[in-house]
């Protein structure tokens, strides 16, 4: 039973972080270097959304995915997909915001790349290399949010045993039953997973990219 909950947790949190980074990092880069009319307002919106309450995200996704909602035909409410969608929405602003803040000296880096006449794919690979530490840190932030989040995934996932029950929603479930020791045990597992992730990422950050 525990193995299933742990697996579900990973299956929801890793892809959602992955997708959020895939969208959030380029978005942050774009906001950093491009100048356009409503840039300041967009950045302010990103700041606001980075603090989006998970229950609100959950409610919105619920309404959208419900059979009566605009995306009801997808039939993914109360599945892991719905949970991933919710978490991606929650994580993108955080990753975007961090990328925005992390791209220090990007102008001089771009100047250098221009000087070396790097273009297209090679240019972006060089930028990713230069800022790999920041990107890994953005992943850490996203993953931390994903793994600790409960309000949103509880609403759209429904805490179904063997399918959408993940560690955080299982903890809530144990608390409602008054099984505090079980809840505590699950909490310890959650922390252990978080520790493992952070260790892996730290190794990546330290050894691979240095």
């Amino acid at each position: 039973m525990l193995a299933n909950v742990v697996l579900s947790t990973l299956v929801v949190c890793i892809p959602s972080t992955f997708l959020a980074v895939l969208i959030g990092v380029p978005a942050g880069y774009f906001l950093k270097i491009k100048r356009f009319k409503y840039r300041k307002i967009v950045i302010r919106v990103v700041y606001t959304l980075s603090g989006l309450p998970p229950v609100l995200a959950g409610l919105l996704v619920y309404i959208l995915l419900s059979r009566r909602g605009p995306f009801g035909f997808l039939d993914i409410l109360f599945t892991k997909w719905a949970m991933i969608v919710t978490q991606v929405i929650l994580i993108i602003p955080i990753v975007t915001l961090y990328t925005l803040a992390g791209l220090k000296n990007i102008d001089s880096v771009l100047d250098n790349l221009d000087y070396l006449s790097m273009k297209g794919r090679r240019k972006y690979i060089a930028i990713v290399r230069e800022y790999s530490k920041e990107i890994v840190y953005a992943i850490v932030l996203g993953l931390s949010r994903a793994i600790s989040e409960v309000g949103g995934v509880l609403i759209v996932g429904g805490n179904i045993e063997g399918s959408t029950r993940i560690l955080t929603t299982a903890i809530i479930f144990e608390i409602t039953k008054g099984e505090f020791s079980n809840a505590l045990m699950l909490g310890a597992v959650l922390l252990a997973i978080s520790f493992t992730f952070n260790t892996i990422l730290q190794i990546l950050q330290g050894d691979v990219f240095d």
Partner: protein
Amino acid sequence: MKTQRYLKSLIAFLFLICVFGVSFFSGTAAVKTYKIATTTSIYDSGFLDFVTPAFEKKNKVKFNFISVGSGQAVKIFKNGDADGIIIHEKSFLDELKKEKLINSYTAFVSNYFVLVGPKDKKDLFKKVKSIQEAFVLIRKNNFKFVSRADNSATYIRELEIWKLSKLKPNFDGYIKSGQGMGMSLNLANEKKAFILTDEATFYKMKNKLDALDVIYQNPNDKVLENIYYFAYSPKKMQLSKFASYLKSKEFKNLVNSFNQKFFKKEVYRIVK
């Protein structure tokens, strides 16, 4: 050290792939899955998980229970996000029937609502003859009373009792928890307050609720009767099989063994 570098990224990558791989394909075998919105009490007590596996196995189906308050369960069902529903508030079902969202409903088990409260106040309620009288006594003494105050069947029943006792629950001791049965019981235990609850949830949690005891119960009072019903969408006629299973001998035996295993007495009763 280039090889080591790539090895590490490779390990990380493989780890990702593994997780992705096992992900959605695990547990999604070729069985038909039905989503059933249920009220928290009958799911949290472990009852549904105890009585359904036999049926699931025999008919090659899988039930996904979404355990929420009765009000939300009805909403989920109305939106078409669940194929079936298990609740203990008949008026909700009559409404669904009127809207032609269900054809009929099946009453399958019942238990009783009981008034629980702080052990040390038990003596005060010795002479109480009805649940209404007990409520009057609580109101008069301004004792603490935890109300779920959500759209749940238990809350609806509580309001009904307040109405029967011709009182409004607007006194200082009246605490609105806004949470499910289990959490509200925890709250009542911490605050040493009275609370209306279903027997099964209370007995299941009793060893964690050290301050509480049953203050008033009456199996002959209709207002304290708590019947659970199953209904399904006409679009999912296959679920009629489950409805008839709930009336079968096999199901009755399972209910008996559940009672024996967890309560050592008859808490869930078969509805004829």
